């Protein structure tokens, strides 16, 4: 079950957890095709990853374009930014239709996962298109 969060404008300013995000864990989630699923749609500065999708903008330098609050809303519920978005709402478990039994009532990522991913994305600056290295 997802906990409450406050949307202010185009951000969720407050972190979802008290534990700060871990960018290294975040990177592992982003490249995991079962968990983060990000590279099914996005490309990004993950040179070792073959078969990145091309349904969504490149994530290189996204930390320079968006702040953590904006990244948080984007991940939690992209439909609040663009109601037609195909990007899944990673922190939403209700209002969905015919969810498979294995997934019912669960969010795609946990609150801590989201914070970890934000920490990683925030580190992807235009200056350093390499991002967090393993």
């Amino acid at each position, binding site marked *: 079950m997802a906990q409450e969060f406050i949307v202010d404008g185009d951000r969720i300013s407050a972190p979802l957890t008290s534990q700060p995000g871990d960018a290294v864990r975040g990177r592992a989630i982003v490249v995991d095709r079962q968990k983060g699923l990000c590279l099914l749609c996005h490309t990004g500065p993950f040179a070792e990853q*073959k*078969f990145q*999708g091309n349904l969504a903008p490149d994530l290189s330098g996204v930390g320079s374009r968006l702040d953590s609050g904006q990244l948080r809303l984007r991940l939690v519920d992209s439909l609040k930014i663009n*109601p037609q978005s195909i990007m899944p709402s990673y922190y939403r478990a209700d209002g*969905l239709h015919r*969810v498979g039994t294995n997934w019912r009532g669960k969010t795609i990522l946990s609150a801590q996962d989201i914070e970890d991913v934000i920490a990683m994305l925030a580190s992807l600056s235009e200056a350093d298109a390499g991002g967090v290295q393993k």
Partner: protein
Amino acid sequence: MIRTALIAFTTTVAVTAIAQIAPGERRSGAEFMSPSTQAMQKDDTSNPGMLAALEGETLWNAPAGNEGKSCASCHGPADKSMKGVAARYPAIHQSTSMPVDLQGRINLCRSDNQKASPLRFESRELLALTTYVALQSRGMPVSPPDDARLDPFRNQGETLWRQRFGQLNFSCAQCHDDNWGKRLGSAPIPQAHPNGYPIYRLEWQGMGSLQRRLRNCMAGVRAEPFGFGSDEFIALELYLMSRAAGMPMETPGVRP
């Protein structure tokens, strides 16, 4: 600020959200495959689906059920009686006035006309017979019946097509109308035309029906798939055939 952004989006996207693929833009699923898989489909001696068709031919001529009748006992040679049939299914079944797809029609003949037990969905026999019957339409244009009784079911299919499903919250249209030709990870997104089914899929190492493919797509977005033979699948099949009207039938298709 985000408010105005949202309004701007809804107006522009309302147009794209109901966009359909223009007739000149339509591409068979085979066109999204590698040249070697295309060649495998084109050449009957290398297309593994032809083995299923051969098996279907044997079943066509084999007596079954309490009446001891074969399909051929009533229908004669399939290359005449079944020509063009697959290209116009699903169609209305006269006695129930409900739509039935090709597999369902074959099973009705099993139970009503052969007095045999219906064949299980995805069974070798049902896939073989369906492939053999559909092969008799190869090269013929998909021709959905001009039958007003089908309209409500086709409309239901279109509604399902545009409905978001599953934990990943995707509609069929978002992938197959709005993003065909792009890549989801390594997989090119095709336009979802049903004209090659049943197919031989290399990943399955076997034949599969259109409904099996649709269940894969639903599971992919973490949705609870509709059941084999369900009204929802018949409705979706009707809608898919109407989207593909005029495209040549290709059964048996090969897919990666």
